């Protein structure tokens, strides 16, 4: 416990927490984007979209060892805790950094920092806002956007993304997420002390490829629905899901 409090009290420790939670959230994004791409793989013979089946699988995964929804809730709690910790340590560090540089320069010129790195707080804040919006939109169905039917993922997505403003908003936020990841995914390796001159190029390349993959993968969904390239949802019997 002493080690944890010592770690938390230092800036390197707080950055370690930001890096580890960032890594967890990055892992989540990779899984999320892979799951999303199931909207493109069609339906089962019984007419259930693959993405609906996948959503159902997430709810029952671990059965019969775990009760229904248990694994999903464990993942949700870990992810929400990661988001919360990520935000708390970063905000604490940001306040400290403001105090560390109380007076700015009359003339300032950046030599190396990228826009993505300088705008991390901005992109992060927008992503935090988006997470709330996105959960209200597609998890709880609490927003007056399109139709919402619990479990009918394909139908919900189809209905919401018919609105080009909503689709473009999602695409724009994915662009912002890309900025966050471009710096963040490399930065976490440096913070954890894993980067060195031997690996620097590979790690930065990894961050770039992962960022492009995630941004393009996520953006394809709203763009495809918005442009009318996707088939209309077909009603099916929800009982088909509970096999």
């Amino acid at each position, binding site marked *: 416990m002493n080690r944890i409090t010592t770690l938390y009290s*230092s800036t390197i420790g707080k950055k370690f927490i930001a890096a580890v939670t960032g890594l967890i959230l990055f892992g989540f994004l990779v899984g999320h984007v892979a799951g999303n791409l199931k909207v493109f793989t069609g339906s089962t013979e019984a007419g259930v979209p693959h993405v609906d089946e996948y959503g159902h699988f997430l709810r029952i995964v671990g059965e019969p060892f775990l009760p229904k929804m248990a694994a999903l809730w464990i993942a949700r709690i870990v992810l929400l805790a990661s988001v919360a910790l990520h935000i708390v340590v970063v905000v604490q560090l940001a306040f400290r950094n403001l105090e560390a540089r109380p007076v700015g320069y009359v003339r300032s010129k950046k030599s190396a920092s990228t826009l993505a790195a300088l705008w991390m707080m901005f992109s992060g804040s927008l992503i935090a806002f988006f997470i709330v919006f996105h959960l209200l939109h597609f998890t709880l169905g609490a927003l007056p956007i399109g139709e919402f039917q619990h479990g009918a993922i394909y139908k919900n997505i189809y209905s919401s993304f018919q609105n080009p403003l909503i689709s473009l908003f999602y695409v724009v936020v994915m662009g912002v997420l890309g900025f966050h990841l471009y710096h963040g995914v490399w930065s976490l390796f440096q*913070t954890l002390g894993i*980067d*060195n*001159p031997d690996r620097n190029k590979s790690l930065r390349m990894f961050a770039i490829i992962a960022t492009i993959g995630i941004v393009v993968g996520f953006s394809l969904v709203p763009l495809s629905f918005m442009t009318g390239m996707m088939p209309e949802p077909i009603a099916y019997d929800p009982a088909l899901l509970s096999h």
Partner: protein
Amino acid sequence: MKIRLHVWRQESTDKKGKMESYDLDNVLPDMSFLEMMDVLNEKLTVEGKSPVAFDHDCREGVCGMCSMVINGQAHGPKATTTTCQLYMRHFKDGAEIYVEPFRSGAFPVLQDLMVDRSAFDRIIQAGGYISNHSGPKPDPNSIPIEPGVQETSLDAASCIGCGACVAACPNGSASLFTSAKISHLGMLPQGQPERYERVGAMVDQMEGEGFGSCRNYAECEAQCPKGISIAFIGRMNADYLKATLVEPVDGRGKMHAQ
């Protein structure tokens, strides 16, 4: 050469400062930046005004005394060059040049362009040493060191402690300085006995002085007059995390099997 200077003037730490402008007409391209400042001070003295206070010592790029942020960059626009090694030929005729002190909460302005960098001394005192016997001098090269490690350690040791990294960092972080000092001892066999104690003590001192946290911008590396790599910051992070999370507190206690 003609130049127009905008210089930060501040009487003392607790007084408010402001930028003041001066025109110089007789600047020679082969003057160093500090010689140009000397010419300005000469002129100000003749006019009965108070000269601009600035730090300088060796004027050959090794002591780390000269500071100044010139046109927004620590030690000016030329990479891996201290202010004293910067020459007026590096500027265009008629240039407007902004000269400001190193800015950081932990570096209070003493007067004009002079800042108090003694926070760095206290970081060194906290752990920038090795324990050594005081007996006869050991044979040179009696401890074998891998050449790559030796060279990297010397790269870190080339830090002159000027504080440009802090001035350059948008967060006023001293991570590059502290990591260079930690690494140049911690990489060598002679520095191993205190390796994990050192990283803890020096990082604690750095944070106690009120420096900001590293955000991996790499501004420090770009503006460091010795071009010290942020690889040392990664190394410091790894050592600090190991010291805090892994290194045993009790290495000698009894253990039980089960």
